[in-house]
């Protein structure tokens, strides 16, 4: 399991966390070779998570673009309404194996919090989720869902009160509770071994894309598109396909059109150290982490997973930023053309996919990972429409 991706990654953490990170890495190494663990993961992936998810040909969206074919990898159909459950399930089983009775998690859009609450309930683990106050307000329905699932939602009132601050709070909790608690980190960020573990649990997305696209149109797609906040659904899409010639396009949140950098760490950030990992970070000249802004709480993060930093530098993947208003347009396209309400996060990827499809010939195939469903965003979308 790589500690570094090129120069990126590593574990920049207080020594207090080092024993827990080593334990996690050891446990993960044995678990992934343990046939019983794999069988259990596989069983719950099918019977609880609802895998495999379909690969859907978006015919009317393709007509709109009048170019390459657009296919949707339907992670919005996973239990809980987003790809987040793939990782929560895997790490939940690891926590159980390590004998840790308590889970903590951070959440931005609330999807990872919901997924953690679900697996916590299913495995009988106490669950607490840190969520920034701003995000609690804009993703209220997910707060209610987490509470109904038996999790405690801890409002985070520091900093800009979004995902970054929720991760700070979860890390601080973990430093104090590390002996009894597993930090179920939801994205491919954070100190080693989290980026590798999350990538592996999410890689089911890319493996299914490979299998399903071969079965459906006889070959791999030409381009894979996914949105990138911390980057877990994107790394789950890209990582298993990295040794093929499928092109990768990661789509970050550009924020409000006339403002600064939005939350596009790869497009506008510089290498730095945030939340235990060395990767691209939106920061000022003094090395202080910048405030970010995006209409989608799940992409509203100043850092990004270290493997993406290396995919960018090595030229293996391209990353672009899509503004709030374009993501909203794509939300409506998908709703009206296909009858699917995408999460605002995923709508960023849909917009970029349509733009790419327009430029490409009809024989090309584009697969977009539709990371989540949009029920949580109805209020935000409604408010934007009335403006």
């Amino acid at each position: 399991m790589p500690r570094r991706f090129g120069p990126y990654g590593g574990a920049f953490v207080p020594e207090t966390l080092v024993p827990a990170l080593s334990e996690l890495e050891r446990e993960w190494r044995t678990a992934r070779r343990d046939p019983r663990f794999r069988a259990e993961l596989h069983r719950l992936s099918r019977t609880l998570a609802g895998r495999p998810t379909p690969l859907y040909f978006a015919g009317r969206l393709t007509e709109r673009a009048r170019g390459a074919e657009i296919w949707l990898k339907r992670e919005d159909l996973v239990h809980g309404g987003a790809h987040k459950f793939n990782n929560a399930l895997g790490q939940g089983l690891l926590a159980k194996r390590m004998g840790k009775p308590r889970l903590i998690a951070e959440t931005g859009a609330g999807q990872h919090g919901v997924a953690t609450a679900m697996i916590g309930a299913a495995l009988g683990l106490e669950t607490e989720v840190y969520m920034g106050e701003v995000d609690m307000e804009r993703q209220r329905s997910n707060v209610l869902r987490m509470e109904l699932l038996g999790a405690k939602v801890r409002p985070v009132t520091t900093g800009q009160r979004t995902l970054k601050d929720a991760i700070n709070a979860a890390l601080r909790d973990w430093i104090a509770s590390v002996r009894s608690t597993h930090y179920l980190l939801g994205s491919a960020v954070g100190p080693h071994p989290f980026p590798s573990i999350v990538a592996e649990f999410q890689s089911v997305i890319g493996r299914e894309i490979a299998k399903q696209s071969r079965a459906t149109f006889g070959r791999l797609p030409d381009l894979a598109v996914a949105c990138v906040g911390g980057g877990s659904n994107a790394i789950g899409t890209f990582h298993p396909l990295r040794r093929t010639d499928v092109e990768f396009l990661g789509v970050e949140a550009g924020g409000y059109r006339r403002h600064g950098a939005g939350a596009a760490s790869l497009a506008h950030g510089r290498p730095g150290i945030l939340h235990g990992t060395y990767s691209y970070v939106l920061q000022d000249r003094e090395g202080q982490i910048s405030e970010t802004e995006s209409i989608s709480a799940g992409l509203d993060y100043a850092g990004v997973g270290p493997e993406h930093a290396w995919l960018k530098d090595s030229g293996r993947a391209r990353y672009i930023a899509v503004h709030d208003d374009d993501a909203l347009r794509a939300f409506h396209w998908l709703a009206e053309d296909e009858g699917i309400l995408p999460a605002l996060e995923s709508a960023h990827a849909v917009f970029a996919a349509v733009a790419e499809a327009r430029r490409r010939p009809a024989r090309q195939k584009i697969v977009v990972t539709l990371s989540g469903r949009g029920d949580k965003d109805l209020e935000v979308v409604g408010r934007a429409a009335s403006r």
Partner: protein
Amino acid sequence: MPRVADALSLARSQGRAALVPYVMVDRARTRRLRSVVEAALEAGASALELGFPFSDPIADGPILQATADRALSNGTDWSDLVESLEIASALLPTAVMSYANPFWRHGLDHSLRSIARAGASGLIVPDLSLEEAPPWIAAAGRHSINLVLLAAPGVSERRTVRLARATRGFLYLVARYGTTGTALSAERIDLTPIVRTAHRAAPRTPVLIGFGIKDPATAAQALAYGADGVIVASALEERFVRAFGAATVRRVLGPIDRTLRARGVSPPSRPLLYRTRR
């Protein structure tokens, strides 16, 4: 001004427990910094830890988080660190404490040269684990800065040995599971085995305990574990909110210093034989 390492070794060889207060750099405080550091010196401090604010301090509890937020909103930047260092290091041996990213952003060599020139002789980076430390140790060596590593409860004996041998100046032992300044948990973790391991691995390296040292009782407890001194941070910063000045320093450090003096520490045990090369 002697280096932090020398000041702490001297205290230890004289059987005195070291007292190291922490003050966060803040543009709004620069004017009164000299009187604060003078008061620390008079209250018995052996060295000073100068904190540089970071926007996302994951090892810090609410008090130091709020202190950092205030400092940053007052516009504190690298130039204030340099200015504060020049003031403080003229009075007390001074180490800088901050998170990895501000140093990385300025460039390791550039930032270490900058603080060394301003008078720093030590650097403490709470989010720098042993695995990530090598380039930092090398850069610190180039600029005559002692890179102080942290040990913590739960760290294996083998790792404690490695930390004690790799650290320079002193070993910073985190007192418990938790962030700075948060309430001491009901369970006391006996740090004696960690201190003993560190002393055996590096007999001449002092071990200082920090995180949660706030009064004579907690300071006495630290010495009972065998530590050579204590670091006092949140207890000071909590009271600095109301008044950043010499009186606050005296009120917090005075009683702790009296306890430390009353107890003392044992000087490092001398090896029985010095091996000489013939």
